């Protein structure tokens, strides 16, 4: 439970007051600055000067120096004392009489004006006066006989009644704040506004059984003793805004010294927190008599001596709480003290407390809470990292803050060697660093944080290691290398080198892993990764350096370095010629690369095409020499043939020269002849040497594609002629019938490609029509079609012509009007028939006159056509 919030320090010892006189007791006290006044039961006032001395160790002691004592001559106890320091007066209550004495001389001052106030049971001074005059004190007075409260103002030498208000019952204790009187009546407490007369009952209380307490604790807020030994709070509206504190039944005095409520009973001083209502400290105090606070200083008196209850500095209280691991209470106390501490100082204090609290919870493995507090306290993460041995990079300039935030040397100390605990702490740090590394918390120490995280990941074999290295990071290379090597994280190490711009070192590392020199199973596809890496490497030297290794390892994948290289503007482009030269010794890779250039990138360069064709050819030739795998050979030949057919950029003669002597590659040879437009040679090979008629047909189709109709016809006729040529040219074992069938098929299949008339002329006479029915039928239909089409075209052309003439006429001419009244220009007779002839200029004449004139004219022939224009 206990917090050490206060210390009890003696102020005035018994010797100074009454010596050994047993019957003399302290009745009341007042303290005002350094002035301490004590009233006794033998009607004396003692005046002390109270000096506060702080020893070198920070311990506070008080020295009381007696200045004066004065007998008031009433033989009754001095029951109350209040200082009005601005007036230099003490207000005293003795024997029911209220009067003023001078603060220094302790001489009675005549209260000019009225008589002495008599029959007083209690009074109080308004600490929140309604009158602005600083040289005027307001007080409320309770009388023994009347159910009233009187309000007086006190000036230097005058006491004046201002107001008198009635109460429903006899009041026995009073406190005053502004216009609000807080009263203890005989059976209840109430709030009474003496200005408006408005009252508010608070709660019942039997003042016969227990002494009531009404203590003003702040502006318009009072602390009251409630039934059941409670300390209740009530404001001037009669509302309780704080939960009550639980005192004992016999409390005789109470005061607030924020954030604590101090109460005195017969044997103890109890100290409760106003923040959580808990009892925080209990001090034994015998014969307790008086507990009052004066300007924030809590002073107590037993019957014989005076003490000061000195609050310990808040920071020390908080540290005490933290030292006993009472985190919640420490935080509540800190937050509660916010309003008593300047804002900037509070911020610093609060942050530190949060951090300390975080470390305490961390040490108890309450990571969730610890994390919250670290966050809120803006902890320099390095404080946490530094707990873990060797995590901070050697280059880090970090030193732990002083005074230390926690008591631990390192994690092993904290966990006391429990490996389970250490592991949990490490996992926590991993998650915590992972969360904060992207926030501004790590500003200025990113290297330290990232390096620590890297080390933890490596040590814990954590999957996020690669994510860390793949993203933007600030890991310190020098520190991380040995660590990663220690945990065999060579792939990660390579990534780290890469992050630091040392791609060469990275590749060195990775190639050693692939070669099995180093063991790291992070990636099973590391080789492919390296190839990919080289694909995108911007440094060409690096590419050349490691391409050899990659190609040796696996040429088909290795060549991806060149073929899959991402074309971009930033990257230096590889020169294909250089690559081809380089790949000279890796034939398989070279082939793949050329295929990439020719087939995929469609680079139109004779050199590449020829090179690729030659490579294909060489491969076919190689396979022909050792005919083991039929399928492989077919495959290779198909590639070669496709190449020969599709491309038109290679050097045909060169290739032709290479296969001239190879009798197995006739088809290829035919294709090459075709490329040279030597169709007769090609077809000759196909038909007579290979006797492969479908190929011959395919050849025609291929050779005729993208040609005009005439050349198409020519090529097909050529084939037909070859088929129908002299049988003796055919090699042995084949007869003319076979060729003829091929010719028939050709005609029937590709009839449209032939000129039917020419074909019919050269066809042997003996062939039946039935045989050629499809061809002939199609040919007739085609020529019919052509005929009709052309007729339609003629008709259309004519009508178009007519239309145009009509239009022309309309453009140029008005109609030529003839009637019976008009005369012919030539014979001057009138027209009797609609048939006329127009002379040039549109002059109508009789037909016969016109004919006559043409006959007579030397240019008659030229005019014969200009008739019929009616």
């Amino acid at each position, binding site marked *: 439970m206990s917090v050490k919030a206060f210390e009890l320090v003696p102020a005035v010892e018994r010797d100074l007051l009454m010596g050994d006189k047993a019957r003399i007791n302290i009745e009341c006290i007042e303290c005002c600055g350094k002035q301490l006044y004590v009233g006794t039961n033998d009607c004396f006032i003692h005046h002390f000067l109270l000096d506060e001395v702080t020893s070198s160790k920070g311990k506070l002691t008080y020295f009381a120096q007696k200045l004066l004592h004065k007998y008031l001559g009433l033989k009754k106890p001095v029951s109350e004392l209040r200082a009005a320091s601005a007036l230099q007066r003490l207000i005293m209550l003795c024997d029911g009489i209220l009067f003023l004495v001078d603060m220094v001389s302790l001489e009675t001052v005549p209260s000019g004006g009225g008589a002495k106030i008599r029959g007083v049971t209690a009074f109080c001074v308004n600490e929140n006066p309604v009158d602005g005059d600083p040289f005027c004190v307001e007080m409320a007075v309770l009388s023994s006989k009347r159910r009233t409260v009187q309000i007086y103002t006190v000036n230097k030498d005058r006491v004046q009644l201002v107001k008198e208000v009635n109460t429903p019952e006899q009041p026995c204790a009073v406190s005053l704040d502004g216009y609000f009187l807080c009263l203890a009546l005989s059976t209840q407490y109430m709030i009474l506004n003496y200005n408006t007369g408005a009252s508010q009952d608070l709660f019942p209380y039997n003042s016969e059984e227990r002494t009531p307490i009404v203590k003003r604790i702040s502006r318009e807020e009072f602390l009251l003793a409630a039934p059941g030994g409670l300390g209740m709070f*009530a404001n001037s509206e009669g509302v309780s805004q704080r*939960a*009550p504190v639980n005192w004992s039944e016999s409390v005789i005095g109470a005061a607030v010294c924020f954030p604590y409520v101090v109460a005195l009973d017969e044997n103890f001083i109890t100290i409760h927190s106003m923040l959580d209502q808990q009892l925080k400290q209990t001090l034994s105090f015998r014969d307790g008599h008086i507990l009052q606070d004066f300007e924030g200083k809590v002073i107590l008196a037993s019957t014989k001596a005076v003490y000061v209850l000195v609050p310990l500095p808040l920071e020390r209280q908080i540290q005490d709480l933290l030292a006993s691991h009472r985190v919640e209470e420490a935080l509540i106390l800190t937050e509660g003290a916010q309003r008593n501490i300047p804002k900037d100082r509070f911020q610093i204090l609060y942050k530190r407390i949060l951090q300390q609290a975080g470390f305490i919870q961390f040490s108890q493995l309450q990571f969730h809470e610890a994390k919250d507090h670290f966050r809120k306290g803006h902890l320099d993460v390095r404080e946490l990292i530094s707990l873990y041995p060797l995590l901070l990079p050697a280059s880090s300039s970090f030193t732990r803050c002083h005074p230390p935030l926690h008591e631990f040397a390192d994690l092993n100390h904290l966990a006391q060697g429990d490996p389970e605990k250490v592991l949990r702490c490490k996992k926590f740090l991993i998650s915590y660093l992972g969360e904060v590394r992207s926030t501004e918390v790590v500003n200025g120490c990113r290297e330290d944080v990232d390096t620590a995280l890297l080390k933890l990941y490596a040590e814990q074999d954590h999957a996020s290691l690669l994510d860390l290295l793949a993203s933007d990071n600030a890991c310190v290379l020098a520190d991380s290398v040995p660590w990663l090597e220690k945990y065999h994280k060579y792939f990660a190490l390579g990534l780290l080198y890469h992050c630091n711009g040392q791609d060469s070192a990275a590749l060195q590392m990775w190639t050693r892993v692939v070669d099995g020199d180093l063991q790291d199973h992070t990636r099973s596809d590391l080789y492919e990764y390296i190839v990919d890496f080289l694909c995108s490497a911007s440094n060409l030297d690096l590419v050349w350096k490691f391409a050899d290794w990659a190609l040796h390892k696996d040429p088909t994948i290795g060549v991806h370095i060149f073929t899959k290289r991402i074309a971009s503007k930033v990257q230096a482009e590889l020169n294909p010629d250089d690559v081809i030269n380089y790949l000279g010794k890796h034939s398989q890779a070279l082939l793949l690369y050329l295929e990439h250039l020719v087939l995929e990138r469609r680079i139109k360069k004779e050199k590449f095409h020829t090179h690729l064709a030659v490579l294909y050819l060489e491969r076919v030739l190689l396979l022909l020499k050792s005919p083991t795998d039929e399928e492989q050979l077919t495959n290779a030949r198909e590639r070669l043939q496709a190449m020969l057919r599709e491309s038109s950029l290679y050097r045909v003669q060169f290739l032709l020269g290479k296969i001239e002597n190879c009798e197995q590659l006739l088809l290829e040879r035919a294709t090459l002849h075709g490329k040279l437009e030597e169709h007769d040679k090609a077809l000759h090979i196909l038909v007579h040497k290979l006797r492969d008629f479908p190929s011959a047909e395919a050849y025609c189709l291929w050779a005729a594609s993208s040609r005009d109709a005439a050349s198409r016809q020519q090529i097909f006729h050529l084939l037909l002629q070859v088929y129908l040529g002299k049988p003796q040219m055919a090699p042995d074992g084949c007869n003319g019938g076979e060729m003829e069938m091929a010719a028939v098929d050709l005609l029937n299949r590709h009839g449209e490609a032939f000129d039917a008339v020419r074909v019919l002329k050269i066809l042997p006479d003996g062939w039946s029509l039935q045989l050629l029915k499809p061809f002939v039928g199609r040919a007739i239909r085609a020529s019919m079609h052509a005929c009709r089409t052309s007729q339609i075209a003629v008709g259309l052309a004519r009508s178009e012509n007519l239309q145009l003439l009509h239009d022309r006429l309309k453009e140029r001419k008005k109609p030529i009007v003839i009637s019976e009244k008009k005369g012919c220009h030539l014979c001057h007779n009138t027209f009797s028939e609609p048939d006329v002839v127009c002379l040039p200029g549109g002059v109508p004449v009789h037909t016969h006159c016109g004919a006559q004139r043409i006959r007579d004219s030397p240019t008659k022939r030229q005019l014969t056509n200009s008739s019929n224009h009616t």
Partner: protein
Amino acid sequence: MNVGKTSLLHRYMDRTFKDTISTVGGAFFLKQWGPYHISIWDTAGREQFHGLGSMYCRGAAAVILTYDVTSWQSLAELEERFLSLTDTAHHDCIYAIVGNKADLTDTNAQLAQDSDGHSGDSDSLERTDEQVLSACPTPPASPVSLSGLMPHKQVTHEDAVALYGRILRYKGLEETSSLPAEKMCFETSAKTGYNVDTLFETLFDLVLPSILRKRNENQGCTVNLEDSRGGGGSKRSRSGCC
């Protein structure tokens, strides 16, 4: 003796059901509700602190009157002793009547409603908080003698509804213009969490508009959500079922 006011609040605020001791004087909670803080007073049920009730009720916007469903007397005491304490509440204060300990009589309420509550396990019948026995000297009934017996439900929902009607009459409110009884009478279990969130959230939603209206009229008005209590009833219920 206890009807379970503090337990209700603990269940709602901390999501747990733990042993509480008899509340001394009163306790105070702040609940963050959207952008607002709602202050909730947990009052002391003991006779000794009876006089403080009206202090806590002063200016309250809502009052939760809690009884024990296994104790007819706890409901009767609400009306006899505690209703007058609410005289100091705000004039448009709303009233909720809550029958707690529903898990003792209603199997539905034995099922926990939030993840961290216990579901209705076998010892749910032994609901004999230690402090109940110590705070109330008369009943000697031991927890063991209770086990296996379902305490008789002494207060029905209709009883609570009827009380609600009488409260409205006592306050001089028209039934037609007030909130309907069906909406304002709850049966809860602080032990299992049954209906607890519903209770508080319903009240907050109902009360917030009037608080805001009041605040606009009068800056700086505080709001008390007040738990009054019925007490002393469990004694009877125990003897009745044993």
